[in-house]
């Protein structure tokens, strides 16, 4: 049952043992005890996820046997069953809220981070602190007023309420993260572009953005993960129409607790988009996380 929780962290952990190709040039020693430990830990993290995916393709009869079955006839029946129970709406809602909020965060956050890092003014530090301070109040403390506000403007059980909240929730993180990437860009580049005759907008688009694109990819992925995983706002402010994937999953656990294969199919579907996003962003991410090589 707990397999639904490590869905986001598991892919990252699972990749670490297979990362060594980068180091392949280093001459292999006979036996590296730390390597063995890394493999054991990595497999330990990966196994529950692997088992969840495996179970999702089983018939309900094969799913929970006293001798666990590794060999079975794979089937998509359980996925179909999950769709019949309305996972489609939840998936679409989650995709919509995640995609739109991430897009908004990037549209607002990237220029903000650009200004705060490459064109600092006297109150820049205060602005940065303000962004950070919005993260200091626990969400629980704000949920009642938020509920009242959302209810008053008629956005209860409306996906746009989540879009707005997810944007607000991820914006400070994105600004701080993007700022660290922008700070890596030498200010002289902007000056050089300006002397070459570029407007600020042109310089940003042609010179700065290509350099920080790995950072943008990394930031976007973080926002996607946070928005996709978000549960508290979703469970408090939505009911049926605007229900997102995490809320659906929890409801599913309560309702279908004994149907392991179905549950695993639903959880696999919940994990898949984030894993895909991470996989697509992989190349950029590696560059994004080892950013110093820019100069």
């Amino acid at each position, binding site marked *: 049952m707990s397999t639904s929780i490590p869905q986001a962290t598991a892919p990252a952990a699972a990749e670490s043992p297979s990362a060594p190709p980068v180091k392949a040039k280093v001459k292999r020693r006979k036996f590296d005890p730390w390597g063995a430990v890394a493999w054991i830990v990595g497999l330990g993290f990966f196994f529950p996820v692997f088992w969840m995916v495996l179970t999702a393709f089983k018939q309900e009869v094969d799913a929970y046997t006293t001798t666990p079955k590794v060999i079975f006839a794979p089937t998509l029946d359980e996925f179909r069953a999950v769709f019949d129970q309305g996972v489609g709406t939840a998936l679409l809602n989650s995709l919509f809220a995640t995609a739109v909020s991430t897009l908004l965060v990037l549209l607002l956050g990237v220029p903000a981070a650009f200004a705060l890092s490459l064109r600092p003014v006297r109150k820049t530090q205060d602005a940065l602190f303000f962004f950070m301070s919005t993260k200091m109040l626990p969400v629980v403390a704000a949920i009642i007023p938020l509920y009242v506000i959302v209810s008053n403007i008629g956005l209860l059980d409306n996906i746009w309420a989540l879009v707005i909240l997810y944007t607000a929730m991820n914006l400070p993180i994105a600004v701080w993260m993007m700022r660290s990437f922008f700070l890596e860009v030498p200010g*002289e580049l902007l*000056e*050089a572009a300006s*002397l*070459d005759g570029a407007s600020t907008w*042109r310089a940003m688009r042609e*010179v700065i953005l290509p350099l920080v694109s790995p950072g943008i990819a990394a930031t976007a992925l973080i926002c996607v993960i946070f928005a996709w995983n978000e549960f508290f706002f979703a469970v408090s402010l939505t009911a049926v129409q605007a229900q997102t994937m995490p809320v659906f999953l929890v409801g599913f656990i309560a309702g279908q607790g004994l149907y392991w294969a179905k549950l695993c199919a639903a959880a696999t579907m919940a994990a898949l988009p984030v894993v895909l996003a991470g996989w697509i962003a992989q190349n950029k991410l590696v560059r994004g996380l080892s950013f110093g090589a820019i100069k």
Partner: protein
Amino acid sequence: MATITYDNASCIYEGSDKLAVDSLNLNIEDGEFVVLVGPSGSGKSTALRMLAGLEDIDEGNIYIGGKDMRGVPSKDRDIAMVFQNYALYPNKTVAENMGFALKLRGVPAAERRKKVEEAAKILDLTQFLDRKPAKLSGGQRQRVAMGRAIVREPQVFCMDEPLSNLDAKLRVQTRTQIAALQRRLGTTTVYVTHDQVEAMTMGDRVAVLRNGELQQFASPNELYDRPINAFVAGFIGSPAMNLVTRPITSDGVQLGEHATMELERDQMTKLHELGLKEVTIGIRPEQLEIHDAGKVEVVVDLVEDLGSEAYVYTHAGSGVELVARTNPRTAPKLAETVRLRKHPDGVVHLFHPETGARIG
């Protein structure tokens, strides 16, 4: 191409109560190569950045080709700049780096390529046009930065210590190349350096700055032969001019117990007129020679043999250190006592002991 005028131009950095550049006045002729030189913190880079529009002109004004530059953004000043770290666009190839300004100006691709190729030929970069800057050596990057500037045919070149990241040999080589290129293109150039050798060898005229204030703006020879104050005297020339502040005697300056530097008669007259007890004298190492008739008795501390010449570091009395140039074959030994005199063609410069201003 254009003239440049700094008219009482000042710049102050936020949070500082001292002017980074203090009422700078310079008149730079069309096609001239002017070097701004000074120690770090002298305001030379700030002065250049004000010209380029990267720092505000807080007071006074700067004119390029007679046009008022206050409030004109960098992109509209038609200035090309070579940065210390080159500031090449890492995501663009050499050709794209060099052609970026033309692209922004809407020059058609074919013409752009022609101009870039011409510049690449001058700078010996033709085979690197498709490479990214990361794949180039330091010297090649420097040349790309130069190329980016010359492709544009701007009114003014600004160069901010463009050679300081090169190794010594390449620096000397590139120094002459830049100077020759500038002569050929005839573009007005303002060049910032802390290296007085670069200043002396490259500039038509050199402006020496200190603490944001202009000390002297003159040709290299003038700076060398007639420094306007003790700071310029000590800054220009290597090894530096001997500068010591000592009491005046009846016929010269007392350097030590058995060491007197004789002065010309009219210099003595001037000193008496001013009623000074002490004076700062300056004499260049190559204008001091070891000679038995010399009246300055000194002890040799160190001999620096450079092959073609040797510098003898000595002291006379307490605290008075003098450097003299000599022939390495006949250089004295360590701790030897020798006599120095002013070379018959040499000059002893006199500076005011407090203000440092030139007296004669």
